């Protein structure tokens, strides 16, 4: 059966166009449409229902950190309380089961997982931890992202002190008398927050944001926003057939973990030392044609050298944008490529990611 989030009635009230996404009935867009919603988030404040994502709480004593380091390629011992890091769940070949955000909380860790992967992730993590710890994939919590330059001020009005959070840090806050957990993070390229709140209070909380100039934004704009920000979508840009190094996400592997053990560590080390055959790059078609996932990429001699994994029209950059994997020798900036769209070869160039970059203050101090 298709699942509904706690904001389902609110989505209906806001005239959402609902689609089945990872087993949930989710809003792809509202009345204004993807482009207006995208631009509103960049200039104002957008509210996203991301309750379909998994909120996995892992509780345990001191050995938990060591055991989790056997799973994730990050330096968890250095993580401060309420600090978050982006990481991966990998298989032994360094293929990506899922990408995730892990936050150190009191008594354990909170891991945010992709909706389509969360049940399988739970099984894998549970097995790797030998069923030793208390793992809870919480269904009674909603997750709401508030993103955009005005997110900080709008949220601060209702949640005192939240604007003091630094980027990729979180904390426990109060909304009215309700306990909520907030991290300063997001997936849009904007300043913003993610709020974990009990299902029965979620609608009331979101309504308060909407009463203060924020607007609901659908998954369609979430996708164009993340693409402009150069961020990967699991299942499109990364999956079991790509490693974090091939995905150009080496920065997310902690330096002092490169010589230590975790699933896929041998491959990661080898790829860092001797390079990769294919690598993810940003690609800009020379005209308005959109190159969507699976579009073939050719070199100057029309030899196939890769595939597009995500492509759309970027409303804020006002240009067709894409990303994909190319043979490593074609990954240099400004390399000329051709994309095969409807039988035609469209000229394109390798470009820097992100397509869109904003100089915003990440919390009180730039980190």
């Amino acid at each position, binding site marked *: 059966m298709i699942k509904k989030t706690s904001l389902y009635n609110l989505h209906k009230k806001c005239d959402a166009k609902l689609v089945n996404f990872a087993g949930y009935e989710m809003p792809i867009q509202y009345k204004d449409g993807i482009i207006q919603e995208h631009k509103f988030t960049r200039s104002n404040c957008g509210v996203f229902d991301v309750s379909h994502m998994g909120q996995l709480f892992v509780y345990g004593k001191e050995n938990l950190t060591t055991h989790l380091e056997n799973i994730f390629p990050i330096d968890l011992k250095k993580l401060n309380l309420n600090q978050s890091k982006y990481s991966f769940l990998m298989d032994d070949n360094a293929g990506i089961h899922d990408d995730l955000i892990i936050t150190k909380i009191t008594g354990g860790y909170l891991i945010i997982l992709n909706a389509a992967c969360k049940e399988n992730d739970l099984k894998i993590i549970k097995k790797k931890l030998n069923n030793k710890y208390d793992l809870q994939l919480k269904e009674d919590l909603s997750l709401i992202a508030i993103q955009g330059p005005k997110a900080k001020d709008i949220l601060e009005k209702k949640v005192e002190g939240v604007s003091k959070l630094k980027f990729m840090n979180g904390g426990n806050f109060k909304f009215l008398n309700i306990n909520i957990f907030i991290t300063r993070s997001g997936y849009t390229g904007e300043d913003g927050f993610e709020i974990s709140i009990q299902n029965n209070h979620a609608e009331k909380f979101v309504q308060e944001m909407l009463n203060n100039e924020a607007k609901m934004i659908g998954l369609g704009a979430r996708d164009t926003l993340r693409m402009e920000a150069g961020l990967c979508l699991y299942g499109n840009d990364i999956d079991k057939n790509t490693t974090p190094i091939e995905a150009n996400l080496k920065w997310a592997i902690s330096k002092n973990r490169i010589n230590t053990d975790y699933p896929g560590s041998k491959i990661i080390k080898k790829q860092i030392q001797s390079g990769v055959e294919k690598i993810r790059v940003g690609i800009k078609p020379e005209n308005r044609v*959109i190159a969507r996932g699976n579009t073939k990429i050719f070199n100057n001699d029309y030899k196939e050298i890769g595939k597009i994994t995500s492509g759309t*029209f970027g409303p804020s950059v006002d240009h067709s944008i894409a990303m994909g994997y190319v043979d490593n020798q074609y990954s240099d900036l400004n390399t000329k490529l051709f994309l095969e769209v409807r039988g035609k070869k469209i000229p394109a160039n390798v470009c820097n990611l992100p397509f869109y970059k904003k100089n915003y203050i990440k919390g009180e101090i730039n980190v």
Partner: protein
Amino acid sequence: MSDVKYSKEHEWLKLDGDVATIGITKHATEMLGDIVFAELPEKGSSVEKDGTAGVVESTKAASDVYTPVSGEVVDANQTIVEDPSKINADPEGEAWFFKLKIKDVKELDTLMNKDEYDKFAKESSQ
């Protein structure tokens, strides 16, 4: 507006002598969402009834544009290629796609009038 006819592929056609102006319906644009790309047939080319005569892409997906009748393309609206958002703004007016010199007037009989199309659109979107 009585001379406007509609196809099951959600194109509209307005006849002026033996030249038909063709575009996509408001209902079609609402289903597609924000249109960000348009491709039109070349002036002077021939198109066959129900054949592909262009492409529109929204932020979500690409869709073919079909021609409801056969003929020779005598004009194509480049302003919608330069600014595809015009298609969402005024799909059944300023944002026409192309003009055809009609080959066979009888083909028009297969198309719907406004009432028939409105009913069809309502049913097909349910």
